[in-house]
């Protein structure tokens, strides 16, 4: 007989919160049931408010600080790797596959941690304009990003749906569906990390119930869809996004510099050179 192991909460603005609707849904793993929040429209709106604040705070950290914060997160994940491994195994992975996934996830964290203070060097440049001007293209993060996790039972994939945008300095609202236990568990490490409140928010639920609210929300600057969506869902998202020209990326790259590119804006500054 399975037992209810734990009731998880969303993680928004540095706090564990129930869905304001009070609704939950049940995720059944090998030995346990978990009750997890079924995110409502109102929860999305609250998450955006938190993410906006979190964005400002996350922005204030220097790239060097961001590297350290992400590295510290990797240390905590590593310290708790048994917990994640257990969830993965309960979700059906073999021990060795689960181990490998955790190892990959930690490697991903290390890679992006070390990228936080480098991506701008790799994407910006001094432009050789014809004339007596200093012209530099530097990069800024897009703002509040909603990321939709894949359906895989993979801790690494979860992180790869979060880290590219987070590393550029965006604040993230990470949304997972039936595999949300991993994300909700990650919230505990986020909470213990030095990430500013609201920089990374974790929601769980049924994406189709909030698809309109997210894609219509003007203060979500970008949506990154890592999950396979139906054509009609993609259409809904893009149609809604067009009202405020929200940036939509569907199945963006999850490795290399190119994984960060969808989340940056290029700002080019000109200045004359004279006496």
């Amino acid at each position, binding site marked *: 007989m399975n037992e209810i192991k734990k009731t998880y909460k969303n993680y928004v603005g540095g706090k564990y919160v129930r869905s304001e609707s009070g609704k939950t849904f049940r995720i059944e793993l090998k030995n346990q049931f978990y009750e997890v929040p079924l995110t409502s429209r109102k929860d999305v709106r609250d998450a955006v408010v938190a993410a906006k604040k979190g964005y400002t705070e996350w922005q204030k950290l220097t790239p060097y600080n961001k590297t350290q914060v992400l590295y510290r997160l990797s240390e905590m994940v590593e310290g708790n790797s048994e917990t994640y491994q257990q969830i993965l195994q309960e979700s059906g992975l073999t021990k060795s596959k689960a181990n490998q996934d955790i190892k990959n996830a930690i490697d991903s964290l290390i890679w992006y941690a070390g990228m936080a203070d480098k991506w701008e060097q790799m994407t910006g440049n001094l*432009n050789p304009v014809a004339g007596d001007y200093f012209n530099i293209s530097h990069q800024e993060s897009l703002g509040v990003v909603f990321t939709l996790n894949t359906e895989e039972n993979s801790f690494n994939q979860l992180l790869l749906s979060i880290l590219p945008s987070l590393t550029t300095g965006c604040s993230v609202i990470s949304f997972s569906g039936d595999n949300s236990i991993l994300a909700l568990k990650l919230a505990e490490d986020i909470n213990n990390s030095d990430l500013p409140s609201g920089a990374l928010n974790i929601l769980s639920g049924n994406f189709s119930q909030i698809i309109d609210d997210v894609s219509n929300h003007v203060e979500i600057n970008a949506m990154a869809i890592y999950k396979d969506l139906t054509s009609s869902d993609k*259409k*809904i998202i893009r149609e809604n996004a067009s*009202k405020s020209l929200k940036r939509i990326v*569907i199945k*963006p790259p999850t490795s290399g510099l*190119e*994984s960060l590119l969808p989340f940056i804006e*290029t*700002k080019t500054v000109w200045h004359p050179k004279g006496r």
Partner: protein
Amino acid sequence: MKTWDYAESIESSAIVNIEKKYGIFLDGEFQTANSKKFLKTISPSTEEVLSSITVGNKNDIDSAVDSAKNGLKIWSKLTGTERAKYLFKLARLIQERSREFAVLESLDGGKPIKESRDFDLPQVAANFFYFAGWADKLDISWNTKGLKPYGIVGQIIPWNFPLLMLSWKVAPALATGNVVILKPAESTPLTALLFAELCQEVGLPPGVFNLVTGDGTTGAALVQHPDISKIAFTGSTAVGKYIQNETAGRDIGLTLELGGKAANIVYNDAAIDQAVEGVVNGIFFNQGHVCCAGSRLVLQEDIHDEFVSKLEKRMQSLRVGNPLDKNTDIGAINSKEQLDKISFLVNEGVSEGGTIFQTECELPANGFWFRPTLFTNAQPSYKIAREEIFGPVLTTLTFRTPEEAIDIANNTEYGLSAGIWTEKGSKILWTADRLQAGVIWANTFNKFDPSSPFGGYKESGFGREGGRHGLLSYLKVQS
């Protein structure tokens, strides 16, 4: 008082040869379109009919796609260096025929010959030169693997810089290995048609550059075609939103360069005389038909009176008139429709309570004209302070502190460009960091260069044109 009037100094239009009627350009040659509909393109400075152009329909777009498919077969087999050679040749030919292009641009679009000759055409050639050189260096352009061209790219360009916008679109698209179907603006198609002749002259493989003239219905047919894998659009935010919505059901690439309502912030420690010049250039360049125009003068309150006095004096020296007169600073408004829009918004500005200053100048009897206009005593809530006017109309707002300047500057859905005027270096950088805009001109304005990325934040669109960043608008980044 004696005055010294400059005698007319007219650039001869004998150099251009305009056909009575134009077809569309597919498979490397001019063809009669399936559409039998034509529209007249006129000179906005005289209202004289210059030519009739085809209004391409859905069948014409289908044919253009067929042509492009054939073009892509050839183009994708060429090495980068081979593509580069074609683009270099185009650049050279544009330079050689730049006077012809400049006259045609001023005739068809109404912009002063001074600008088409000294700004548009040199920039057009520079764009082809710049992107030609990238064609064989794509693999080392970004630290990423697997950059691939989209294939067939649909491009829709506006009427404010017709040939320049063509070059911003066509040069990077071809350099990166795409083929192009271009739809120029309905009021300014002539330089694009002449460019098609150049493509023939350099022997560009058939189907690589395709041109379908027309109006909004032609553009819509292009946007809706399922075999177009990337749309690049420059124009209004409303149409940009329409395109994002219209293409929502397809996994295609999309870059949009849309409207703006740029703040030109002048701090009290600016080099005032150069700031006045920059503000004038910022809003009156190309009749204010510039998406990145500095249409909001955000002025530190303690220098308001001195600055406005100098600005009004400077505005008074602007010469409005015949675009082909070499001494004309401000030409004709591009169309009757645009003139009506400008007039409407200016009237709104007056009725909302703004103080209007317009220069005293004689306007020609025919054609579409608008006097350089400055609003003071305007409030951030006024329409003239919020909506893109796209004409020679400047609205002044004042601020007390740098924080307030930033608040005012960012208080708009647009985010294309901004200006900063101060001689204090650290204040420039502080301000630039906080402005939500893709292009920031500090102690200058309206500067462009092929190597300098251009494009907006927020509802001014997405994607960049120009520079290394501009390549990414035409390359798929594959996971």
